[in-house]
């Protein structure tokens, strides 16, 4: 069930009705949200619900056992087992066939005839996200950053809450569980939530979808048929498409949670305006980058043990961050590029690090970071390594022809998507506050009409969000 569909709208209407009827009965509201979330998840494949419930049960039990452990050593052992089980589940569903395929390729190179069999199981949507939720909870209990969750209903809701279930943002236990302990006394921020939904719909339905169908998909599927100008614009196009697609989902998830009375953390903050690669990761998929920082980079030692260890930790963290996105070498290459880039940036810090940049230097730095990120996106988007190599080869040599695929409309969409990276923060706040002054009926009518207009502007049908496959 995708957000921009009639099915989801009717589903949300029923959930909103239940929230309104139950009003102050917080436990009943939570129970309804759990049932709704499992129904939402079952729309992909009902069998995955058992996996989600199992992952929730594992997290709940591990939290209890860690809390009751007589000493730190026992708690650490339980944490290790629970994390291994979580990662085992993720590995079995997401990475098993990738490792088998890689082992078979290696065996062929070594001249061995025997091939290991594939298990070919369907990837459960959202498994990477709810696995990270589970690991975050048990680790935080172990570290003492969050109180153990004694209410199974709260754990079920934390792991399954439908706005973030299939594509994030990754909401930490220490952030979300306290919201389940008692009902919020704050009013529901209807104006900002509607603004997030409408801007998210525009980004997804108009910008991301037209860029995908009008430029990115055709060029990336046959890069040798196009010249350098199309390849370059398709690279920029993909940078804008993936931002508009993923941030749109995050915006809508944040807004839906807000309309149900819950707070979510920010996940994007105009990432392509970053002047350093490090800053890019402070602005892009923030919930993942902070997760990797706290549960991978820091436990590896962070930057405590000298420069070489820091570079190694950066590289390892980003390699695993790449692998998290998918079981393919192209994602590992994408992670390696970012890890290597971060390490090089850190090496150069004595020369570029501490000084304030002049306006011209800021523009140059932004352009350098943006183009580095775009280069890495080629690996991320290409079908495989070989296609990425052909694509980069075309970019390097094929500049004799003109534009075949990129028309004025898609170029305008790229410009619009990039211009959105440089709007002042106060703009959103001002519009959201203006929304807050409109009466409810007016907001509802306006939202309905704007959604109808966005729908008319977009292509027919609904394309799935890119991050659903991760």
């Amino acid at each position, binding site marked *: 069930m995708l957000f921009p569909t009639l099915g989801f709208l009717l589903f949300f209407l029923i959930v*909103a009705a239940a929230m309104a009827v139950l009003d102050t009965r917080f436990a009943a509201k939570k129970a309804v949200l759990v049932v709704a979330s499992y129904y939402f998840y079952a729309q992909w494949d009902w069998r995955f619900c058992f996996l989600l419930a199992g992952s929730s049960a594992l997290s709940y039990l591990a939290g209890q056992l860690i809390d009751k452990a007589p000493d730190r050593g026992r708690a650490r052992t339980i944490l290790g087992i629970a994390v291994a089980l979580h990662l085992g589940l993720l590995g079995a569903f997401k990475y098993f066939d990738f490792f088998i395929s890689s082992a078979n390729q290696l065996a062929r190179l070594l001249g061995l005839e025997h091939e290991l069999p594939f298990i070919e199981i369907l990837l459960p949507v959202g498994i990477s996200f709810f696995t990270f939720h589970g690991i*975050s909870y048990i680790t935080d209990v172990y570290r003492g950053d969050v109180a153990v969750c004694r209410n199974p209903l709260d754990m079920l809701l934390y792991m399954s809450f439908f706005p973030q279930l299939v594509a994030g943002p990754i909401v*930490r236990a220490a952030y979300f569980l306290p919201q389940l302990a008692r009902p919020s006394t704050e*009013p529901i921020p209807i104006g900002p939530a509607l603004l997030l939904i409408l801007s998210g719909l525009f980004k997804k339905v108009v910008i991301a979808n037209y860029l995908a169908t009008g430029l990115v998909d055709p060029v990336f599927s046959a890069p040798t048929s196009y010249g350098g100008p199309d390849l370059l614009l398709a690279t920029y196009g993909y940078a804008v498409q993936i931002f508009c697609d993923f941030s749109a989902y995050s915006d809508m998830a944040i807004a839906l949670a807000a309309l*149900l009375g819950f707070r979510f953390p920010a996940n994007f903050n105009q990432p392509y305006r970053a002047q350093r690669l*490090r800053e890019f990761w402070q602005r892009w998929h923030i919930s993942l980058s902070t997760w990797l920082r706290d549960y991978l980079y820091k436990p590896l030692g962070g930057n405590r043990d000298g420069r070489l260890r820091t570079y190694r930790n950066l590289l390892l963290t980003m390699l695993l961050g790449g692998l998290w996105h998918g079981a393919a070498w192209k994602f590992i290459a994408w992670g390696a590029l970012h890890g290597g880039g971060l390490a090089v940036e850190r090496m150069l810090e004595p020369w570029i690090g501490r000084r304030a940049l002049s306006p011209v230097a800021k523009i140059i730095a932004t352009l350098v970071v943006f183009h580095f990120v775009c280069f890495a996106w080629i690996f991320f988007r290409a079908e495989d390594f070989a296609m990425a190599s052909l694509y980069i080869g075309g970019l390097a040599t094929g500049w004799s022809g003109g534009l075949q695929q990129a028309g004025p409309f898609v170029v305008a969409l790229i410009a619009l998507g990039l211009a959105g990276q440089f709007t002042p923060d106060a703009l959103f706040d001002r519009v959201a506050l203006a929304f807050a002054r409109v009466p409810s009926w007016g907001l509802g009518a306006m939202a309905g009409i704007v959604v109808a*207009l966005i729908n008319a502007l977009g292509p027919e049908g609904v394309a799935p969000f890119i991050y659903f496959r991760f």
Partner: protein
Amino acid sequence: MVALERELREPLAPAPSTTTADAIPLALRRHGGSPRQVLAITFIGILALALFASRDLPSWVGGLGDGPLIERAQPLATKWDDAMASIGLTRPHEALRDLIRRLLDAQW
């Protein structure tokens, strides 16, 4: 990435792991409504959508799945769309689709 900003001179373990900012800042959360208002807005929004996006209603209903209920709902959606077209509410939709078609066909 975020972690790299800070030099970690202090021991790591006791540091709180959550340093996340709310997506909707506090200043914007001071004004708002109740769950009943959310329900009312959702309902009115769907109504407005049914009025102004009736052209796509039959295909949306088809996208809900199969079954006797959907089979009965689809002719109703088509009838509803015809009714909206007769009072001119489908014109903005058609004008925008036409505009997009021309933009997509535009060449350098």
